[in-house]
């Protein structure tokens, strides 16, 4: 049976790992290559590197970190942040990324999803989405680290993302991100009901049971967290043991 995936995300800034709470107020934490190796040892099913500077200031992604990590970590690596052209994608894949995550650039230029899927294959195109409740019972899509409301309906957007050939969606809820009250189950459920491609839950994990709850109550195939793992409050083996105990297939 296919196992549900637990994915630690390493936010990288100037070569260091950081985690912003609600995308603000960052703390410097450590060497991304060493962190990735540690997560690999703990049993992470995939590792995500996100270059937070690149998306804000248009800088190239931190490819040396990716290159060094790919030489010693043998689980799938996803790289995001500041990827806005097919050339950026090619460069990132050649550095050793297995998947590339595009977010703002895809909203601004949806053709990027189609081009990436056609040239490199759907399997390596992850579309990251930051969404927030619109106060009218729906959700709207934000860009630039959750700061700009694009007034695009979330469910229409995920439909287009799938149609254009994305292999996976990583759905981050701005409402729950950094709050640690659990994943946004309602939003995740709405998106999982709409598409047939895998959906990764992101934003809001605060305690052990949040992961199992997301798997039990929504159709997500993976759950992602950053600071929770990074500061050692929870370890990946603890999360997996909790899920396994509740009958959720884990590697």
């Amino acid at each position, binding site marked *: *049976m*296919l*196992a*549900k*995936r637990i994915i630690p995300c390493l936010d990288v800034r100037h070569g260091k790992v950081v985690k912003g709470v609600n995308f603000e107020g960052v703390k410097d934490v450590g060497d991304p290559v060493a962190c990735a190796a540690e997560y*690999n040892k703990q049993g992470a*099913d995939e590792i995500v590197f996100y270059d937070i500077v690149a998306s804000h200031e248009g800088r190239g992604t931190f490819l040396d970190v990716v290159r060094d990590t*790919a*030489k*010693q970590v*043998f*689980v*799938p690596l996803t790289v995001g942040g500041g990827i806005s052209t097919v050339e950026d994608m090619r460069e990132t*894949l*050649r550095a*050793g990324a*297995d998947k590339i995550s595009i977010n703002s650039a895809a909203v601004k230029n949806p053709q990027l999803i189609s081009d990436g899927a056609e040239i*490199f*294959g*759907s*399997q*390596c195109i992850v579309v990251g989405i930051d969404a927030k409740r619109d106060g009218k019972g729906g959700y709207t899509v934000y860009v630039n680290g959750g700061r700009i409301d694009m007034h695009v309906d979330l469910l229409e957007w995920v439909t287009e993302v799938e149609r254009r050939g994305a*292999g*996976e969606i990583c759905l981050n809820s701005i409402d729950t991100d950094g709050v640690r009250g659990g994943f946004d189950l309602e939003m995740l459920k709405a998106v999982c009901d709409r598409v*047939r*491609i*895998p959906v990764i839950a992101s934003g809001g994990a605060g305690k052990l049971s949040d992961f199992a709850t997301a798997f039990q109550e929504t*159709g997500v*195939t*993976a759950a992602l967290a950053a600071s929770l793992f990074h500061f050692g409050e929870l370890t990946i083996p603890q999360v997996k043991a909790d899920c396994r105990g509740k009958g959720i*297939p884990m*590697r």
Partner: protein
Amino acid sequence: MIAVIDYGAGNLFSVCNALSYLNIAHEITKDAAVIGKADAVILPGVGAFPAAMESLRKTGLIGTIKENAQKKPLLGICLGMQMLFEQSDEMGICEGLSLIPGEVRHIPSKKVIIPHMGWNELVITQDCPIFKGIEQPVYTYFVHSYQAFCKDENIAAYCEYDGKVPALVTDGKYVFGAQFHPEKSGEKGLMMLRNFEEMAR
């Protein structure tokens, strides 16, 4: 030395990173002479079947690969595994390398999430040198939307995804194909690459 066929496949570098980490001598090549003197051959691959076959055809290596597959171990990975079969219907019928009887079609289930992406448990059905010394359960990393359809005798391991998905296939002699990515399947995946190299000695 293992020859890793260079025809532009996206996972070429991941495969080579894993081989380097294991200190396994290898050469990225599109040279028939290098393939000829290699002890084993790896055919990587991700993406769409017709485009990959076309790129491989352009290297002029199809005859060389088929010929070498009769006398030394060959491992196809992911799309490289699918290319070992007779044909695929991804974007229209396209001929493969015909090293293992069978064909490639879309995963038939309408109930499951496509692509089949993530770690799935192998059900090992044949004693195969690739699995030597590897403890159960064995989870490996898959990402694909098409799968092989072939005889049980060619399946050394499968996984369940609302049906049987061939995971490791073989012609019973020198040809092996992994639908999963051993180079991305953690320690156990690395052990499989090590086992493959040992077969070549």
